[in-house]
């Protein structure tokens, strides 16, 4: 296990679970932003290409004591990513300021070791060549390259938007390494109808997320495994927070 650098900028996402209605707009935004092909048979959720997946959480109580929540899961961009050190060909790395875990499709050989190593199921493999219906490829964005089959892909916090935000900052004579709050936002965060997804630099006191992640209601998934995710969740409900990690019966959240 190699140790990863602590970056001056740490892009984090904070998802307010108590605000998520599970509408799937984030997934829809992600798919077209990142040129994921439509999938005529998406029944087998273990085979679909989706960088953002909304999970349904249950407090496992019977009606009428039942409660539920939706949990959108992008890539956690772990501070200590289990996927990076395992890659045999350095197709994935965590080496850029901001801490976004990169995935380089032309380098990937498709061994899927990273898929196995990631407990969040954030990484998906291209089982098929992507196919767009006749003409629909004209709505591809220039932001993300298309992937052939046989490589692994995952959410990258719409990293291209970071590059564009930096370009815009340069054009305006601002410091591209010190972006204003909101200058860089992934597509899902931008589009979420309830505004459940916040985004910013955790290390920058001028960014809202800087405070948000300090809340006692904020938590990260599977923190005790040592992955140090850069995605935080927020819920005032104790049972929701408890489902963010595995706990022995005797343990408290």
């Amino acid at each position, binding site marked *: 296990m190699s140790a990863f650098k602590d970056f001056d900028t740490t892009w984090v996402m904070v998802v307010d679970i108590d605000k998520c209605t599970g509408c799937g707009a984030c997934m829809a935004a992600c798919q077209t932003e990142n040129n994921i092909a439509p999938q005529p048979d*998406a029944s087998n959720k273990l085979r679909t290409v989706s960088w953002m997946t909304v999970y349904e959480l249950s407090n496992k109580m019977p009606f009428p004591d039942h409660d539920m929540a939706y949990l959108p899961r992008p890539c956690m961009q772990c501070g200590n990513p289990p996927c990076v050190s395992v890659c045999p060909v350095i197709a994935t790395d965590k080496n850029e300021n901001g801490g976004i875990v990169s995935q380089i499709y032309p380098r990937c050989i498709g061994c899927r070791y990273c898929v196995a190593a990631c407990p969040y199921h954030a990484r998906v493999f291209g089982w098929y060549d992507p196919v767009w219906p006749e003409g629909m490829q004209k709505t591809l964005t220039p932001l993300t390259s298309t992937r052939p089959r046989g490589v692994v892909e995952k959410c990258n916090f719409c990293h291209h938007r970071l590059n564009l935000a930096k370009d815009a900052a340069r054009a305006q004579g601002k410091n591209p390494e010190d972006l204003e709050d909101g200058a860089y936002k992934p597509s899902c965060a931008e589009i979420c109808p*309830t505004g459940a997804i916040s985004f910013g630099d955790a290390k920058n006191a001028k960014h809202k997320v800087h405070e948000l992640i300090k809340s006692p209601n904020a938590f990260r998934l599977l923190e005790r495994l040592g992955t140090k995710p850069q995605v935080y969740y927020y819920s005032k409900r104790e049972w929701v927070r408890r489902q963010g990690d595995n706990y022995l019966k005797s343990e408290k959240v």
Partner: protein
Amino acid sequence: MGIDRRAFIGLVAGGVAGTLFTPIPWKMADDLSIWSQNWSWIPRVPKGPVAYAYTSSKLCPSGTGLKVMTVGGAPVTAAGNPDHPLSQGGVSSIGRSETYMLYSPARVKSPLKKVNGKFEPVTWEEALTALAEKCKAAGAKIACVSGDQTGTANEVLSAFIAKQGSSAYYMVPSEKQSAAKAWSLMGGAGQPGFDVDNADCVFILGADMFETWGSSIRNRKAFGASRDASGDAKAAFIYAGPERDGTGSVCDAWIPVKPGDLAMVALGVAWILMEAGAMPSGPGAAEFVSYVKSNCSPDKVEAACGLKPAVLVGVAKMLAGAKAPLVVPGSPCGQGGSAAAFMAGMALNMLLGRINKPGGVVALPALPKAVDGAMDQADILKNDLLAFLKDAGAGKAPEAVLFYEANPAYGLPEADAMAEAIAKIPFKVSFASFMDETAALCDLVLPNSLTLERFDDVASPYGVAFNVYSLVKPLTKPIYDTRTTADFILALAEKMGASLGFASMEEVLKAKVEALALAGGFIAKDVQPWQALAGSSAPEPSADLWADLEGGYAWVLAAGAEQTGLGYAGGVLAKAVKPIEGKVVLAPYARQTSGTPVMGIPAQNLTIVPDNELINTATFVKMNAETASWFGVSEGSSITIEGAGQKLPVKVHLSENVMTGVIAAPLGFGHSAFDQYSKGKGVNILRVLAARVEEGAGVAVWDGAAVNIA
């Protein structure tokens, strides 16, 4: 010269050794791996300048403003326009689909005429001539069915049939129509709106307001704004409905209520408020008081709906204790809502004194019309499509029917009967953009251009507490041989010698905007309409309204219609409140992921549809473990739902989100038309859903129905 084996081996060995010292193997290995990132059958991404253009979504019923990314001028993705009050950057998966649906395989690519049961392409000229003849022949025996709930195109179409002497203009049933009917029964004026932004306690009576009810993106934005993670919630939300779905899941409390019991629950709350001193007044108040007093005490509600009195007391306390309480009645499935529930909910609002108050109910005055001879919205909404089609099924169909943005052969209750009725119409024309179930039955299909290809508008979607108007303008030339229907109708009227006075939809819209400018209002930029409702002073009217609208901004008018005859309609309520009899109630629900009846399932959305709703061709219905035990079924069991004389095979998903005695079933599946993304995906629950007519109100309701399970 002979070469022996050894020499030959020498040649080969030399060749191999030499080759190793040339670029061939190494360059080939490298280039082949580069080739693998560049396969010819994988499309390249476009190059070209990235820019943004603004319009509004017509596919999404919430009427969101769109910020469309273009590359080299071609629309690529649609996001929410942050400067539009109905979207504020948010957009649904339907709004998101506006760009790629341009290329949906289900699109009708040219005008089609049915010849011997098969569609054949025709030119627009031929279509125009053919239709002009048919319309002339039909004369006043022409009707129009429109699914466009917010567009001025309705003015064009209704003026067209009005010139023919017909007033048979029908809207596809929606929350808007259910509300309009119930509201008029109460003597209310204007289109009911709900100021969720300024409310501090919202009791949602059935309405799936964060998914399908009203301008749902606006609702969600208001909800989101009320609960900033860094502070306490600024408003409480209570959801009453059969299932704790998307809306219920984020509310502070869920009160399980069957579709037919929503009115009873609201009246139970009213009983408690009245006990505490609230006094109804106005027309119908006396009947209301006597009915509620004698029929809706908490113990009676408990007997009827199984709700503990404490629950009702809790709701009443929250509402009474709030500064700006609001009750939002609606249908859990976005259509066929109960008039009784609406009236009961509105009665609560009245009891709480919430009419024409910030954070209360604000009914919107009608906007000025642009087209002379167009029918009034209010009049159109009185026409009942269900009754019309039932008549048509009974042989009383008009000569010709135009279907605009409407797919009644799929999207109405008892869908099979509706499709049969439509088939009996002698001549039918669909202006569908996609080959939907209704278009497939039509004699002529004249494809409407899609949102990004046409001039259109969005005026005050149902539910918003302020009049709002935004423009839809073409961002690209039509991809296929399609035309804006309104343009075509204007040309048709012209050809038939009954000109409507406009040459194009653009002209109509310019006239509309001119009329709006005279009505006052302002551009929502620095001041938002809900801020104006709450008392902020409205800015000056726009100097160039058309230009501002073209820039993606919305015109708003924050003023409630004066209510002079509003009353409790106690007499109607007394007759209309009635539970659904039956062991189990089928409670349909709709999600935006499965699209709308006119667009089918957006291609990209199948990935989002969860596997507890659809797997391959199987639709899953949800019930809790107790309900399942009544029928001895478990997760994944195949069952048959019987209703409306039809049987549908479905599978069971156990979910404790659903109240006991209810089977929650997703709408939006089971298309027999469209493309590979919609066709054959699951079953259409509307086929087993029978509409019931609420006595007294005389309104058809299908937010739930008793069904049999086998």
